[in-house]
């Protein structure tokens, strides 16, 4: 083997970039910059203060309340999700075009990196950065857990789903930052996408009501009422006097089971629905408000409402059914299938689509260049 062949052999063996090595290097590069900048720490401090303040106020107002644990727990999870949805776009949506503006993207593109490696590295880094915020709020979640009434499993599942949701929003942000020319534009667009998921899904669901309404359906109603004689007797009425009345009426019916999937894409629905609520629910569904009734937490009631929407017109547990099924009642929580896997799929598909489109913008040599942008 001649000297020249040895030389070229060395070249080809050293100049090969493994896929994981590339992703890891980009991840390290991003993390170093975040950890050495001050912005991340300031945002974390503000986050901690705000969540702490909300938690403190909620603790004070619920100090005398029974079942404060579940209430506080749901409140913290809801707030962490809300704030996470506000922070994650800011952490991710300038990942690519920020580098392009700073002139450092081309320096990465000229190396052996593939577009996919750049996206993976940037996404993992922005996700990790947003997980820092989640870690910072976990003390409050565990504090609420310590107050009792909440199954520890709920806390872990909540944290897990929150982490996944942040990852999905970060993926959206990174993808959009590859698509849009300027960081400001991509950050605003990402916020709009998050707003679309949070509020747009609700609006769409509300507006679709008129499409799923069915007029004049013969419906069998049954409800508790006091019999006529009891009312006329003039005695103090007690619960024992109630009897189950059944009749048929013509009424419009909303088939929300056909549109409930719209709600699945909502991040709050996704998180609320994925948590397995294992709480003392009292007897909330039997139609009778009993003494040990406990109001469900924010997230818990979101989940309940969504499952009611999924059930459609059949959501009511009538007293007739209650009598038939006995004291155990009908468990409407487990009746419709959980909707969160659908939400995960919808949001994942959206994020994947945006990332796929963003990847095309990173392919070099560049054929089409957006107006007003420079490669370097």
């Amino acid at each position: 083997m001649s000297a020249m062949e040895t030389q070229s052999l060395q070249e080809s063996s050293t100049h090969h970039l493994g896929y994981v090595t590339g992703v890891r290097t980009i991840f390290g590069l991003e993390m170093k910059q975040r950890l050495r900048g001050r912005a991340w720490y300031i945002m974390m401090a503000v986050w901690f203060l705000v969540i702490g303040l909300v938690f403190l106020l909620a603790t004070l107002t619920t100090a005398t309340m029974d079942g404060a644990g579940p209430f506080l727990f749901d409140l913290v999870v809801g707030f962490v999700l809300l704030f996470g949805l506000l922070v994650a776009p800011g952490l991710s949506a300038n990942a690519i075009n920020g580098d392009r503006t700073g002139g450092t993207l081309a320096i990465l593109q000229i190396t052996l990196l593939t577009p996919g490696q750049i996206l993976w590295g940037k996404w993992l880094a922005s996700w990790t950065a947003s997980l820092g915020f989640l870690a910072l709020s976990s003390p409050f979640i565990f504090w609420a857990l310590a107050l009792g009434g909440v199954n520890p499993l709920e806390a872990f599942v909540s944290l897990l789903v929150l982490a996944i949701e942040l990852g999905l929003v970060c993926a959206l942000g990174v993808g959009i930052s590859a698509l849009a020319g300027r960081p400001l534009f991509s950050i605003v667009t990402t916020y709009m996408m998050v707003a679309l998921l949070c509020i747009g899904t609700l609006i769409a669901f509300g507006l679709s009501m008129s499409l799923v309404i069915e007029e004049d359906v013969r419906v069998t109603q049954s409800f508790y009422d006091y019999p006529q004689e009891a009312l006329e007797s003039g005695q103090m009425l007690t619960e024992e006097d109630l009897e189950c009345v059944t009749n048929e009426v013509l009424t419009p019916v909303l088939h929300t089971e056909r549109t409930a999937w719209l709600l699945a894409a909502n991040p709050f629905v996704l998180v609320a629905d994925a948590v397995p609520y294992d709480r003392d629910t009292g007897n909330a569904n039997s139609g009778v408000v009993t003494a040990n009734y406990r109001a469900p937490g924010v997230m818990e009631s979101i989940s309940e409402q969504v499952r009611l929407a999924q059930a459609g017109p059949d959501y009511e547990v009538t007293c007739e059914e209650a009598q038939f099924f006995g004291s155990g009642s009908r468990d409407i929580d487990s009746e419709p299938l959980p909707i969160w896997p659908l939400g995960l799929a919808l949001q994942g598909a959206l994020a994947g689509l945006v990332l796929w489109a963003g990847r095309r913008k990173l392919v070099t040599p560049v054929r089409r260049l957006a107006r007003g942008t420079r490669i370097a």
Partner: protein
Amino acid sequence: MTNGYGGIIARGIRRSFGSVAAVRNIDFEAPPGEVTALIGPNGSGKTTLLLILASLLAPDAGTLSVGGSDPGRDTAAVRRKVGWMPDTLGVWESLKAREILTTVGALYGLSPTAAAHRAAELLAEVRLSDYADAPARVLSRGQQQRLSLARALIHNPEVLLLDEPASGLDPGSRVELRIMLRRLAGEGKTIVVSSHVLSELDEIADRAVFVNRGESVKSQTLDEAGTQLRRYCIQAEPMGALADALTSHGVVFEEPGDSRRVEYQVLLSSTEQAAWLLRTLILADVVVTAFAPAGGALEETYMSLDTERQ
């Protein structure tokens, strides 16, 4: 897939951005072992051409071979062989100079030890060893420029594309850049330097390609440039005697208004003619105090092209 030619050959390159034609028709050739200058006014398509050669931008038309491979088809092969120094300074400001080099080294597939070794070597070469552990943001413009050069060299590329490498450099660093580029060319590497500071290219470049309005208008070696028609500046005490002597020998001269000093400029076709004129003037008892080419050889070509254009 390589055609065995280590240098750069580009034929009929075209590239437009929307309705703006940045590169209309450029033929470009840079042989290995030589420094090729890419010369042209601002907005003439130099940076666009370098982006195309660096495999970042696809040409609309034309054939291309960089280090023996086609950037469009065999991008990875070109990337391994090409080092590119952009005209805009992009640095990761919070990273240390050493980290920038090792990170980029890793992205070229160097092992951590190889990258660290190479980084230390290059930092010494561009005189940044003292700043190796300083964040890039504290480096001056010239230092960042040198770091950028080291970054382009991290994977020991066969082809080096430098976009305005000398801008922002102090005179000492320019001399070092010159020495470094000559040494790299001596090792057989293909080096392309774009610039519009022509005086420094005179000393670095072996050949030059002139571009204007997106077209390659002239290609010549420095030896060719040296033998062409050149302007010379002459000063004497007093200037009147010089004017008389020039007129009596039928040499046309003019007095340029762009200089602080009073001097005459004449057009001479060769160094022999220049030697003849100087000897004649001195024999005619003119007290010649200065007799020199008005500008560098490349500047002469550049100015002549500029005149042709107008």
